[in-house]
């Protein structure tokens, strides 16, 4: 369509060019025509004028019959434009007349003044009003004006005479041919541009933008506009892409931030985590796993369980659960890493489901937790149960045995009977002590045992404890010595609890003293007002290693000498707990075979505080 328009324009242009050329040719022709007429007319009239003039006035015009000569002259000119040639006298009478067919000689007023005898003017043919250019010259007779020669030419220019048409055709033809050629060439040149334009349109459309208002104009201008439009679209697209890029970068940063955050959280967990996909390949491991398995994550991730798991039980567990108990029951496995019985690691298998689809298992997560401490605690709990069972049932055993013996007291001697009863009594007391200790420890550990502090005379408290154990000391021939200043004053403490601590320290000293040994209990006040209670024996002593653990719950020395003494490993532990409950400290100094000294230090108790509390 646009191509057609171009064709029309080209045709119009060629026609215009032809018209212009035609007009120019016409104008030129007109000028040449007029010039020709003038030259012909002037020449003819002058020639005839010369020919007609004579010295004799009468002979001047009327003289000889010169018509054939005239005719020859006119014919000589061979001019189609010559309308007529007449010789007139001064009155206007035609003397001689040569007229082309169809022409009429118009009447004319001839000039009289001599300066205007030669000249020309335009007349109109009487019949058809055709413009006639007439040239005239005087005919003289004896120096006097005898008449005029008048030659009339058709002024109208007939440019397209048959001989000229072929010329015009020859001129127009190349223009036409050139125009056509130019059109074809242009078309050929424009074709790719048009295609380019359409392509631009198509591309723009694919970007979702229409090149608006560019269809209205074709050609180069259209192409330019289209190109402009295209550039705008491209620019918009580039801007859009830049925006998208920025957005995606932000999103990526956000994602990476989120990822890092969750990774950080996963790495901060106290538990080690490994995720296996459904082929049993590790896809994720957190930092903790490196420590727990002593393997770098790179050694695990992307590898199958068989490649990195050394422990057969663990491997079987991991593989067994790779397809998983989808039931949601989280299976567990406890194992001792590297065969270390002190350590325990618990693996929990947790199925990972695809989000929003509880039936699609995407993998398994295994959480490795170091439960060594819990294991130890459980072990300790189990030990505690055996320990307590033993400590409680052993006296029962004695009680049952001796009471059964007493059933047959007739067979027993007096001394045997007394001994049996004594054993029953002491074993009962032992059980009671143990039960009390256990209860106190359990209360203290549970936090429900709060010391009920009251003003207590320390002197009396120590004295009472000392007295009550005096008998058992005497039984082992142990000498007991008490050194306590009578003015030691009173302290605020839980009398009942503190007595347990002191009793435990004293009975301990007796238990580990050798017969004939000596135990010294001394109480004193330090310079800074702290009160110190020392229990020193000359017993079997405690090794340096045992000293470190002597206050631990259930701890009993494994040395031969200590092992021959009964004990339940609670006394010193309980004493320490009670003393610390009173913001005091207890320490031990000992030498094997020489003896042991326990030192209890109680904080100084300001009098003002006591008084204010007493109010």
């Amino acid at each position: 369509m646009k191509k057609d328009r171009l064709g029309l324009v080209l045709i119009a242009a060629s026609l215009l060019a032809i018209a212009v050329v035609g007009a120019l040719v016409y104008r030129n022709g007109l000028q040449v025509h007029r010039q020709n007429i003038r030259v012909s007319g002037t020449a003819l009239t002058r020639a005839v004028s010369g020919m007609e003039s004579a010295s004799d006035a009468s002979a001047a015009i009327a003289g000889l019959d010169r018509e054939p000569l005239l005719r020859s002259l006119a014919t000589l000119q061979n001019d189609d434009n010559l309308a007529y040639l007449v010789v007139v006298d001064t009155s206007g009478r035609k003397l001689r007349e040569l007229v082309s067919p169809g022409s009429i000689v118009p009447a004319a007023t001839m000039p009289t003044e001599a300066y205007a005898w030669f000249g020309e003017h335009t007349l109109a043919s009487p019949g058809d009003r055709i413009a006639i250019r007439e040239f005239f010259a005087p005919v003289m007779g004896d120096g006097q004006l005898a008449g005029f020669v008048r030659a009339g030419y058709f002024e109208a220019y007939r440019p397209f005479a048959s001989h000229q048409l072929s010329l015009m055709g020859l001129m127009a033809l190349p223009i036409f041919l050139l125009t056509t050629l130019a059109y074809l060439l242009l078309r050929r040149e424009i074709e790719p541009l048009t295609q380019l334009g359409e392509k631009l349109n198509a591309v723009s459309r694919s970007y979702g933008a229409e090149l608006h208002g560019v269809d209205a104009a074709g050609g180069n201008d259209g192409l330019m506009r289209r190109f402009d439009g295209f550039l705008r679209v491209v620019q918009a697209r580039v801007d859009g892409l830049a925006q998208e890029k920025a957005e995606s970068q932000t999103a990526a940063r956000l994602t990476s931030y989120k990822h890092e955050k969750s990774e950080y959280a996963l790495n901060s967990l106290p538990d080690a985590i490994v995720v296996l996909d459904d082929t049993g390949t590790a896809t994720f491991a957190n930092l903790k796993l490196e420590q727990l398995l002593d393997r770098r994550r790179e050694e695990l991730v992307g590898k199958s369980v068989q490649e990195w798991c050394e422990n057969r039980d663990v491997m079987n567990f991991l593989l067994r659960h790779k397809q998983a108990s989808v039931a949601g029951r989280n299976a567990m496995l406890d194992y001792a890493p590297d065969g270390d019985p002190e350590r325990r690691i618990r693996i929990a298998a947790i199925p990972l489901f695809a989000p929003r689809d509880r039936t699609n298992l995407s993998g398994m997560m295994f959480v490795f937790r170091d439960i060594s401490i819990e294991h130890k605690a459980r072990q300790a709990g189990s030990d505690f149960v055996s320990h307590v069972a033993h400590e409680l049932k052993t006296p029962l055993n004695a009680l049952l045995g001796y009471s059964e013996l007493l059933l047959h007291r007739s067979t027993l001697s007096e001394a045997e009977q007394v001994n049996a009863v004594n054993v029953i009594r002491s074993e009962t007391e032992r059980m009671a002590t143990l039960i009390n200790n256990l209860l106190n420890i359990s209360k203290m550990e549970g936090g429900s045992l709060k010391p009920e502090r009251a003003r207590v005379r320390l002197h009396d408290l120590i004295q009472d404890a000392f007295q009550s154990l005096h008998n058992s000391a005497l039984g082992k021939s142990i000498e007991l010595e008490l050194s306590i200043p009578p003015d030691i004053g009173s302290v605020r403490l839980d009398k009942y609890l503190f007595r347990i601590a002191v009793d435990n320290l004293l009975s301990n000293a007796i238990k580990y003293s050798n017969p004939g040994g000596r135990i010294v209990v001394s109480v004193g006040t330090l310079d800074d007002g702290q009160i110190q209670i020392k229990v020193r024996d000359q017993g079997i002593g405690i090794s340096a290693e045992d000293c470190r653990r002597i206050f631990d719950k259930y701890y009993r020395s494994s040395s031969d000498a200590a092992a021959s003494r009964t004990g339940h490993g609670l006394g010193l532990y309980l004493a320490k707990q009670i003393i610390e409950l009173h913001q005091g400290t207890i320490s031990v100094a000992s030498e094997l075979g020489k003896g042991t000294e326990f030192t209890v230090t109680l904080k100084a108790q300001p009098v003002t505080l006591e008084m204010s509390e007493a109010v």
Partner: protein
Amino acid sequence: MKRILIVDDEAHITLVLKMHLERAGYAIETANNGKAGLEAVTRQAPDALITDIQMPLMTGRELCLAIGQALPARTFPILVMTSRTDREEREWTAAIPLLEFLEKPVSMRSVLSRLEKHLGSGVVAGATP
């Protein structure tokens, strides 16, 4: 006279068992820990062994295992006086032949009946008071 070895760190228990069993006509030897008990067993195998479990130096469990090592073809029974009869305790004893539990508190009648079961009745006929 059948010889019974009693291993216990509790002097009261050893004493009362000894009194009871002597009256029943057994000859009694005592040891106050597993180590001493093992020495006594290797010195001369008794006709029966009565042992406590929780003892210093060597526990009853260690003693039983040590005897198993030292005397693979042991023929005398071991009576274990235990405070616990739970699974853990049963597990290790299950592997030891000729071993019986005596759950604390141990009645003298049950000790005697076990011994009779293994050593035959009427060890000292009429000796029981």
